[in-house]
């Protein structure tokens, strides 16, 4: 056919094992790869974040987006302040119960495919705010893909979390039909995980186990 296939030279050495390229004598080449790989590669490198910043973590998030750490290197330069055009929800900061229905609605407004990053101790577990007003982890409201620890996390930490999410996206398979399923909250309670599980993961831990439930 006059084509020269170069699987070793084109793909494997460059770290892209799924790409096979061919170079005809005339100079007009073609590339073949798995569709999964190509789609995931595109998605993971053009994540548009929906910043849900409620506290000091949002300051670190802004620092991450600014020129020194430059989130644009990861294809995330476009902050999407509308959930309709966003791919990844980054919840940066504590979420009080009053914001819980807002966060839930924003997540429901985001189109598939979508992912969520829980940034910082408060978003992931309630953090130091083990009190009447703060949700003990946003995973009780929406499904979370990556938890970034820290109080607040440094920009490097958030970038590491984003890179973990990119790796996770690269492992997705189109054959897995359940990946794009919307979560299905209970129609009456509106919870998407069982109430007993929420109570269990909201149990106090660390220093806050020594706090009494009632004051006097």
């Amino acid at each position, binding site marked *: 056919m006059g084509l020269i296939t170069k699987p070793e030279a084109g793909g494997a050495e460059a770290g892209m094992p799924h790409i096979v390229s061919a170079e005809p004598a005339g100079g007009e080449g073609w590339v073949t790869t798995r569709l999964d790989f190509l789609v995931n590669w595109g998605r993971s490198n053009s994540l548009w974040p929906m910043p849900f910043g409620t506290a000091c973590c949002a300051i670190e998030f802004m620092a991450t987006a600014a020129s020194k750490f430059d989130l644009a290197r990861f294809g995330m330069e476009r902050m999407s302040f509308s959930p309709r055009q966003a791919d990844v929800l980054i919840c940066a900061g504590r979420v009080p*119960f009053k914001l819980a*229905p807002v966060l839930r609605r924003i997540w429901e407004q985001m189109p598939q495919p979508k992912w969520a990053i829980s940034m910082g101790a408060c978003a992931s577990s309630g953090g130091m705010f083990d009190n*009447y*007003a703060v*949700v003990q982890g946003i995973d009780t409201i929406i499904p979370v893909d990556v938890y970034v620890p820290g109080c607040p996390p440094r920009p490097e930490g958030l970038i590491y979390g984003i890179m973990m999410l990119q790796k996770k996206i690269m492992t997705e398979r189109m054959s897995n039909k359940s990946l794009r399923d919307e979560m299905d909250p209970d129609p009456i309670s509106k919870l998407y995980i069982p109430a007993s599980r929420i109570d269990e993961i909201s149990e106090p831990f660390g220093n806050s186990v020594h706090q009494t439930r009632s*004051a006097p």
Partner: protein
Amino acid sequence: MKFEIVKPGSGNPVEPSTPKNVPNRGGEANPSGAALKAQFGNAILRIDVVNGETTVLVETAKVLDIVRWLHDDATQSYEYLSDVTAVEHRDLSMPMEVVWHLRSIKYRRFVRIKTQLQKGAKLEVPSVWPVYKGADWLERECYDMFGITFAGHYDLRRILMWEQYKEGFPLRKDFPLRGRFSRSEQLRQALDANPEAKYSMEELKVADAFEELPLDMRARIASGEKTGE
């Protein structure tokens, strides 16, 4: 009212100064204390001076009259209400206190008005909203956190917690730190709240922005629509 910039050394009687060597207890009371005593007599229960700040303990029923006089009287001229809050002491036999912080910009004075509410009785004080419109949200916050009713407030409802909040008043001493309900029940009730209720149509009505709204939105409000997306 026109304010003039008063600089130190100008000889103006209200020129700015930094208080020095202020005693922790006692000292010279704000002139408004004596004026209040002369004006209201027995309604003024006690006048304390703590760290140079005058605290006047007054009768609950007289609060609105006293605050109105402090605001209106030309010799007092307390134009600014900086805070309304409440105190519940850890000693449960002590009465609850409601506190108003008043500031006179004209005379550079500060006075703290306090009143005591006995435990067990109805926690109700007069609202100062008719005098200071800025008391609106301060009194709503005080009601939300302590459950104190401000009689005469035009729209007394919760401001920090959502309006259907059922667990009580969080800053009261008998309120458990983590709330009364289980976490799943708290989350269920929170998710049940409509995030748009009281934040769109009704707030706009309160703001009297009705005439400036587009026609379609006016029609939606007139039809009684509560939420919109």
